[in-house]
């Protein structure tokens, strides 16, 4: 026994932490340190926000009532909008918050084509040719771009995730925000192609002109990729221009480097992180640390009454007998989902956990936590821990969850 104990002691691995990581951890931990003044200010602020929200709601209702009374009924309620050309159809994707007009003969890719792209992520791909995924450069849908030659068209829109933590966008460019992107032009200029850019070297000898146009709209930042075969007729060029000008984006900010969500309400914050084998995305109505962790189960403490937190973890996993029954998107919760088994890490929050499997190898877990009731009490079941405004919180969580898009290759958009 003594020999074995000695062997164990000698086998102790020697490791030192990464200094930079340790400093990041110190910063995150110090940010969690509350002061008495902060706690007091937080209470006052929450009450003020509630009062302002109630006053604003009353004001909005009053203005609407006045407008409804003031506007003569024989006038149009909204300005005329450009009408859809004959034979075209409209493609709407509420999850990604993008609408576009689709000409006859064009198709919209049902899945993402640039599967290796995490951030920016592809939210739309469409074109006249075969919409094939992949290609020699995983970050671009190079097969589809090549498919535009010699006389076709391909359009793809990628969106930058605005809130990402370690390992992603912020780590590369901490100060980059949507304001660093040029505003969306009134009309996209497709006269001067950018096919000479080295990033499109992967297109090989295919005779295509390529445009790569960064732009912002509201709080969202995008890249528009357009590829036109060098023999594309003028009518197709004109149609392509009309397609890209028809792009319409819903409000909000997009967060996530693997799976992603769109946050329409500025109260929400988001952060994401990638690991070797998983991607983590977290959004909440409270500020999140710049560096989130993988431990989704243990991060409910930061929530106060009326707060919400949604955590998503997506990883590659082969089917396993221990897998819980799989669900499907969109995730929509009811009070029943919060009646699950009690978790040892839960203190006063109510938690719902959903599990999804996409195709043979991709798994996603979604955790939704509701802030505690004002008086937690001695609850004996999860149901009793639900706060009074649980129905409203669940509805708000469902709104955000309806925008959840997984990163998995087999995932639908």
């Amino acid at each position, binding site marked *: 026994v003594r020999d*074995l104990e000695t062997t*164990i002691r000698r086998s102790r691995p020697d490791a030192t932490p990464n200094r930079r990581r*340790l400093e990041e951890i110190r910063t995150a931990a110090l940010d969690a340190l509350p002061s008495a003044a902060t706690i007091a200010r937080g209470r006052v602020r929450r009450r003020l926000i509630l009062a302002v929200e109630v006053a604003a709601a009353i004001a909005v209702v009053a203005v609407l009532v006045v407008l409804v009374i003031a506007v003569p009924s024989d006038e149009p309620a909204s300005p005329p909008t450009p009408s859809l050309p004959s034979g075209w159809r409209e493609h709407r994707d509420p999850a990604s918050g993008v609408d576009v007009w689709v000409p006859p003969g064009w198709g919209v890719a049902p899945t993402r084509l640039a599967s290796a792209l995490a951030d920016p992520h592809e939210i739309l791909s469409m074109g006249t040719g075969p919409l094939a995924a992949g290609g020699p450069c995983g970050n671009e849908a190079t097969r589809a771009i090549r498919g535009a030659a010699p006389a076709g068209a391909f359009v793809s829109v990628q969106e930058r995730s605005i809130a990402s933590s370690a390992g992603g966008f912020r780590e590369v460019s901490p100060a980059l925000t949507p304001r660093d992107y040029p505003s969306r032009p009134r009309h996209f200029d497709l006269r001067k192609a950018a096919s000479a850019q080295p990033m499109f070297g992967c297109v090989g000898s295919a005779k295509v002109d390529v445009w790569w146009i960064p732009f912002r709209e509201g709080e969202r930042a995008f890249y528009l990729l357009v590829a036109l075969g060098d023999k594309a007729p003028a009518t197709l060029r004109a149609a392509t221009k009309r397609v890209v000008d028809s792009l319409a984006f819903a409000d909000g900010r997009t967060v996530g480097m693997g799976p992603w969500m769109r946050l329409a309400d500025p109260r929400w914050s988001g952060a994401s992180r990638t690991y070797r084998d998983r991607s983590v995305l977290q959004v909440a109505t409270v500020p999140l640390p710049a560096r989130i962790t993988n*431990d989704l189960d243990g991060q409910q403490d930061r929530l106060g009454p009326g707060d919400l937190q949604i955590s998503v973890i997506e990883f590659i996993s082969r089917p396993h007998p221990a897998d819980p029954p799989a669900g499907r998107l969109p995730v929509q919760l009811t009070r029943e989902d919060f009646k699950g088994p009690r978790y040892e890490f839960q203190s006063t929050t109510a938690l719902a956990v959903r599990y999804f499997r996409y195709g043979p190898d991709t798994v996603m877990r979604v955790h939704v936590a509701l802030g505690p009731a004002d008086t937690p009490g001695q609850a004996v079941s999860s149901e009793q821990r639900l706060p009074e405004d649980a129905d409203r919180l669940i509805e708000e969580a469902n709104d955000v969850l309806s925008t959840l898009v997984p990163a998995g290759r087999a995932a639908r958009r």
Partner: protein
Amino acid sequence: MSGVGDEKLVRRAQAGSREAASALFTRHGEDTWRLAFLLVGDRADADDITQDAWERAFRGLSRFEGRSAFRTWIRRIVVNRASEYLRRERRRPDRVPLASDLADPQEDLAASAGEVIAAIRALSPDRRIAVVLHHWVGLTVADCASVLEVPAGTVQSRLARAMNDLRSTLGVTP
């Protein structure tokens, strides 16, 4: 603040002093990371557990009443977080890396694990934690009991069972 004891630093931090809290981290941060790493064997997860433990510690500092030393308390939080991690890992299906280039596998314990380390990693979470605290961190059985908040006899029985498991796995005859 190098000459100030943990007790005073905790009191100042409880009053909202970031400087005192930072000093506590300077004093114990690296040790807690090392403990997390020894428990879970992965640098990224050790980062997460350490961060989560310190966030919890600072957020809940007002609840720290000084019945144990701060070092014992923060170790306990790390062990609890690591314990939850280990239990979750055991339930989690086998996974395939999303992108092998996101971390250097050489840095991870698993990549350089010898037979003994592998056998320790295969122990149940409770036994693994006892072995790590006692044999790798060097805590006495009483200190282990204090960190784990269990009787010393429980620590001893976990260690004894762990040794049986290790003997069996490593083919060591008693």
